[in-house]
């Protein structure tokens, strides 16, 4: 009990210190903090929060330790939408196109997975991968013919939390933020049921959980959230895949709060990575590079220490 309390306290202190550094390190003026850093701070937090939380949910619901928010093809669809807007010169509409791409992909994957009349997580995974590959090919075509937009395309494909918000965009984003966080809260409230699924469909059904319905619902909500993330931040690898595993190893299977811990851990981890990405070199690095660069050794460290 005492240990847990200390751990919690340490986490909060680290988080506060990191937040302060993120907002004020080399900021120059109050204007920069207000118009650039605070939006970036919230975007980073919510992105890490959603990605790691969803990663945890997907790994359980799809019964696959390799599952992550992007595995269902949503990311490629959303990236395709954003990139299409970028090469057409519609920079203001990039998030909107990204989101539309995500939703359309979601329905496509959904319909493919339903072919044959029944619904299984294997079919869902396969259709996700197929649709994802198809959109990746489309992205490659766009990249090949639009060399001048390569910078924007890299931003979408490797993750970029430095989205510049106009006043209108910021207002819209705040509403999206509220909806996303409320959906995340809903997922938390369902976390007991989600954990029951991990014991196997038969047992879960016998315990009174409507597994098929819950899977569908989680898939739908998850896709919406992934769409939001990719639309604003691009594709940031690693967080959704590894952070839930790290949390699982650290808590040694104590499942009650794993979903919340994953989400908070993801937010903290991404905040740290983005801070490094911002300040490591003169030109900001894509955050996706940093997440894997820092995350992989850390994961190995934890794995070795807890073997």
């Amino acid at each position, binding site marked *: 009990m005492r240990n847990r309390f200390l751990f919690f306290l340490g986490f909060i202190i680290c988080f506060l210190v990191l937040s302060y550094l993120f907002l004020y390190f080399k900021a120059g*003026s109050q204007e920069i903090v*207000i118009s650039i850093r605070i939006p970036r701070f919230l975007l980073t937090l919510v992105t890490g929060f959603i990605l790691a939380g969803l990663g945890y949910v997907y790994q359980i619901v799809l019964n696959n330790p390799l599952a992550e928010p992007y595995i269902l093809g949503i990311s490629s669809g959303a990236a395709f939408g954003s990139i299409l807007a970028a090469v057409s010169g519609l920079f203001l509409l990039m998030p909107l196109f990204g989101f539309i791409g995500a939703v359309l992909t979601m329905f496509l994957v959904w319909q493919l997975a339903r072919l044959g009349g029944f619904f299984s997580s294997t079919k869902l995974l396969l259709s996700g991968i197929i649709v994802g590959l198809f959109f990746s090919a489309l992205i490659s075509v766009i990249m090949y013919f639009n060399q001048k937009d390569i910078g924007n395309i890299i931003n979408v494909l490797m993750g970029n939390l430095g989205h510049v918000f106009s006043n209108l965009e910021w207002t819209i984003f705040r509403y999206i933020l*509220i909806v996303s966080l409320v959906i995340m809260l809903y997922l938390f409230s369902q976390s007991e049921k989600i954990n029951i699924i991990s014991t196997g469909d038969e047992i879960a059904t016998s315990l009174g959980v409507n597994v098929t319905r819950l899977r569908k619902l989680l898939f739908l909500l998850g896709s919406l959230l992934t769409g939001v993330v990719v639309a604003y931040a691009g594709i940031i690898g690693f967080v959704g895949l590894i952070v839930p595993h790290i949390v699982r190893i650290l808590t040694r299977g104590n499942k009650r709060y794993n979903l919340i811990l994953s989400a908070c851990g993801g937010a903290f981890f991404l905040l740290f990575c983005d801070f490094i990405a911002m300040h490591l070199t003169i030109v900001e690095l894509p955050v996706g590079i940093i997440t894997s660069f820092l995350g992989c050794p850390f994961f190995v460290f934890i794995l070795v220490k807890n073997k």
Partner: protein
Amino acid sequence: MFGKRTSIFRFCFISFLLILFIQACDLKHQNQETTEPRYIVTSPELAEILAAVDGTDRIYGITSECDYPLQLAPKKVVGTFGKIDIEKVIALKPSLIFTSGLEQDKITADLRKIGLNPIQIYPKSVSGLLEAITTIGEVTGNVDRTRILRDSLSKIVTDAKKSISGLVKPKVYIEIYGSPIMSVSRESYIGELIELAGGKNIFSGLSREYSRIKPEEVVLKNPDVILLTYPGVRAEDILQRKGWGIINACRNSRIYSRKDLDPDLIIRATPRSLRSIYKLREIFYEK
């Protein structure tokens, strides 16, 4: 029953707190009021034009590619051509930001979003360059000085056009990239300079300004002069390409690389590029 009601209540309560918190983050950008002119320039071309028109005193920020004139060296670097650090831009409190095209379309849009004042100028041709000079002269309040510069440059162009009529033009192949090999069309700025200097660009009819080409076409078109503008390539490398030995330029060793002509002089649409027409002509009509 009791547990369920508490959890719904908790759910609503936390949602409500979230909404309050996020609604509190209502941030608005304000246009910065600055009295003196402070410029940031994000492309090497525009930096050269701006320096020629207005001098370098009022330039406060540049990108790392802006290396000419040398007075720009101590200025603050706000990023590279493709990636600009918006925070550094804001910190310099610019009154006007000169941005270019291509990768900078998005940068320009982003700067506008946060209430800064970018002006996008991307000269693609000689006439575009003259226009750009006029525009920059107007926004910086140097109309008279600009007119003199512009007139002298127009004179170079008309003189060049006059002096090349009736000459037997050498066929020129320009290679702007080696893997894959790429050349330029007559629509591009370099293409236009080559024609003004009296060269006949063998790929003038390409459908895109800068485009990939097939090596066999170079051999077929048999250029008299080869001009290499990218780093890391020497004339010997071209001679060693299989099948290229029969090209006129290779037989007469008329292959010119960066050590013969600084490519910045012809790739960037700047005042000094027009003066480099003379240098190009020396290369084309050597002997």
